[in-house]
Structures are given as C-alpha cells and as structure tokens.
C-alpha cells in the first residue's frame, strides 16, 4: 500500500509545482489535439449527415467500415503516415516528418472515423420531422442541417468529446511522426511514454492526472455552455 500512496503523493506534488517545461508540453498537447478535432469535426459530421440522408445502398458497409476503423491502433496510423511522409515517400518533399503539423494530420485521420460513426448514431436518432419541418418552413439546406445538429447536439457533443479523447490520449502517432522531440514535438503522452520507459511511474501518473484534470475542465465548460443554450434532456 505504501508504494501506491507514495507514488500518488509524488504525482500530486509534481502537479502543484508544475514548472514551465511541464506546461509547455501540456500546451503542445492541447493545441495539436484541439486543432485536429476542430478541423475534422465539420467534415466528419457532414459526412455522417450525408450517409444518413443519402440513404443509398451499401450504407451499412460503409458504416461498418468506419466503425472498424475505431479498432486501428494509433501506431498503425502513425506508421502509415510515416511511410507517406518519409523523405523518399510520396510526400517527403513537404518535410513534414517530426513536426507538429504531421501530428495534427495524423490525429485528424484518427478522429475522423469517430466523428462519422458516432455522428451518424446521433443523427439517425433525430425525428424525421425535424428535417421535414425545417424544409417546409423554407430553410435552406445548410440551415436545416444546422437545425438537425442542434436537435441532436447532446449526441454530437458526445461524438466530438470522444474524438477529442481519442486524439489527446493517443501516443502512437505523436511518437511516430512527431518524434517526441523535446520542446518541439513532445506532448503529454509521449512524455508519459518516456517517463514510463525510464521507470518513473510517478511522473507518468502525474502527467496523466494533469491531462485528466484539464480535460475535465474543458468538458465541464462545454457542457455548461450547452446547458446555457437550451434544455438538454
């Protein structure tokens, strides 16, 4: 029991005395992952909407495909992107490897299927009359889509938060195409991986707690905003 208590105590101390280096790592994590999720959300949700309202055959398979993409380990996405971005790869000339941009791209690939699969699940739960009522009252298509999104906003928020959780907690892509370069592409998860490989479990758990608390603040804030804008349940 002592070991656990000690480790937790150490972790909490590290949290409180968080130095500049720690916070730069944290900022990098959030800036990369927020960029990734914000850039992907519109496309993911629009595709989800298109899949539902297009109603074409084979849709079940496309959905199953996106759902199974959720099972792809992050490091495989990282490897795949690495093969594309490596110097002699097709996009080697862009010199994106081991940059934050590469991390953002990788994380966008990672959260896209989440947004499509869970966005679809949310949208299909909407009453058909939302679409009909909005259209018949003269709303243009884009406004109708926004109306539907607003009606199922709780489900969509869950989709976005799940996507965000997936990218902020991933380590495979950040490691493969970010490279865990200190002060440049090191984020919370690659830092945790490093500490873990050194056997510094206290640091690892501490960084995990930092991530958890900041995510909690973000999530609580979002759900507060949402509650301000309308009744949910």
């Amino acid at each position, binding site marked *: 029991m002592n070991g656990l208590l000690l480790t937790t105590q150490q972790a909490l101390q590290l949290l409180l005395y968080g130095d500049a280096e720690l916070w730069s790592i944290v900022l990098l994590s959030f800036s990369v992952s927020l960029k990734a999720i914000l850039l992907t959300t519109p496309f993911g949700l629009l595709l989800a909407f298109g899949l539902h309202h297009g109603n074409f055959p084979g849709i079940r398979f496309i959905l199953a495909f996106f759902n199974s993409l959720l099972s792809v380990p992050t490091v495989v996405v990282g490897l795949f992107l690495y093969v594309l971005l490596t110097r002699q790869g097709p996009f080697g000339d862009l010199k994106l490897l081991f940059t934050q941009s590469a991390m953002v791209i990788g994380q966008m690939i990672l959260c896209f299927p989440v947004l499509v699969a869970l966005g679809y699940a949310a949208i299909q739960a909407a009453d058909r009359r939302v679409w*009909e*009522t909005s*259209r*018949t*009252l003269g709303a243009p298509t884009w406004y109708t889509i926004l*109306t539907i999104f*607003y009606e199922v906003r709780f489900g969509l928020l869950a989709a976005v938060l799940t996507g965000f959780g997936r990218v902020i907690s991933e380590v495979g892509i950040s490691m493969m195409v970010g490279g865990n370069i200190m002060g440049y592409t090191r984020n919370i998860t690659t830092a945790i991986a490093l500490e873990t490989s050194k056997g510094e479990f206290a640091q690892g758990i501490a960084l995990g707690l930092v991530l958890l608390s900041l995510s909690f603040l973000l999530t609580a804030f979002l759900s507060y905003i949402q509650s301000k804008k309308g009744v949910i349940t």
Partner: protein
Amino acid sequence: MSGPLFVFHGIEKTFAEDEILRKVDLSLYPAKCILLTGKNGSGKTTLLKIIAGLEKPEKAEIEISGKLHCWKKVMPIIRKEIIYLHQQAFLFSGTVESNVAYGLRFTSLTREQRRESLKKALERSGLTDLAKQQANTLSGGVQQRVAFTRAWILKPKVLLLDEPVSNMDQESREKACLLIQRMKSAGMSIVITSHVPQYFDGLADVQFDLVNGKLLQ
C-alpha cells in the same frame, strides 16, 4: 376567377406493393380552400407530403401557368411557396417564440418587420403569455397551436394543414377557422384534412373524399 396556382397531375404512390395513390389530380386555386377527408390510412397525409415535396411520388407532374413540369424538377422551386403542417405537430427544442419565428429569417423581411410580425402572430394565436416557455413542456393542444402559428405567419401561397385542430379546444378551433378564413381572403390556397368535416363547413369551397387511391367529390 383567376387560374390555378399549381395543378398536380397523375400522382402515383406505392408503399410495399400497396397502391396508396392512383393517378390523383388536384388543382390548387388561390383564395380557395379544399377539404380532404378519407378513412384512416387512405393516403391523405401521403398526398399532402407529396404536394409539399416531402415525400417522393412514383409519378407526378405539375402544371404551372399552363406548362407541364416533372415533379422532381420543379419541386425545389415551388416548395418555397408551399408549407405543410404535420398531423402530429413537431416543435424544435427552444421557446415558443423561437419556434414561431423559425421561418421568418428566410424571408426578405427586415429585422424590425420580423419582430412586428412575430408579436402580432403570437397575439392573434393567444400565445403571448407563453412566448418564453420551452416548447417541449407545452400541452398537446398548445403545441398544435404553436405549429399552426409558425406556418401561417409565413404567408405562403399554399398551406397544407393535416388535421390542424384535432387537439385544440373549442375556442382555439374557432380562432383557427377565423384565421384560415382571413388567409383565404388574402389569396392563399389552403388544403385541410380532417375527420370532422363539420368544423370547416363554412370554410371549404370543395370537399374531396380519398377512397381507394382516388379523389371523389
């Protein structure tokens, strides 16, 4: 009497081998009110939804100022003139006010005019006191009144009302009939379905009965 706004020709609709509508023709004249009756499941709702562009017919043509058009082609253009009111009212989440104002933002009215129009509409429907209430807490009849108000406030050329008063109390029903009368005089073409034709006795210019996929006068 002026010519018809839209004439629908040969509407056909089949659900799972069930021919619901068999070559239905319907002319919509301005300032006229059609009353549509028929048994449960006869296809009244389906017909109105096709006219409103919300349901795809197997076949249908639309005549506008003497010219025939394919349903599919012309619907995106004329659907703006046609509003369908659902049999089971659907309100967006939000307040009564925001629901009634929903369609106004797509009109060419200025902000000031919209506010004015909203205020007048709420008054006429007796909803002013409820303006700020959340729509999902309303009683069944009030929901129907809100949906009705949300539709007529837009003054479309054609208004399709699917059982508009089924849950309203007598007072609201009479108010609604008065409003429909006024809209008719203003030149709107109105179609009403109802299982209680007596309500609209003075209003309807013509009554059709939908039987076996055909309209009978």
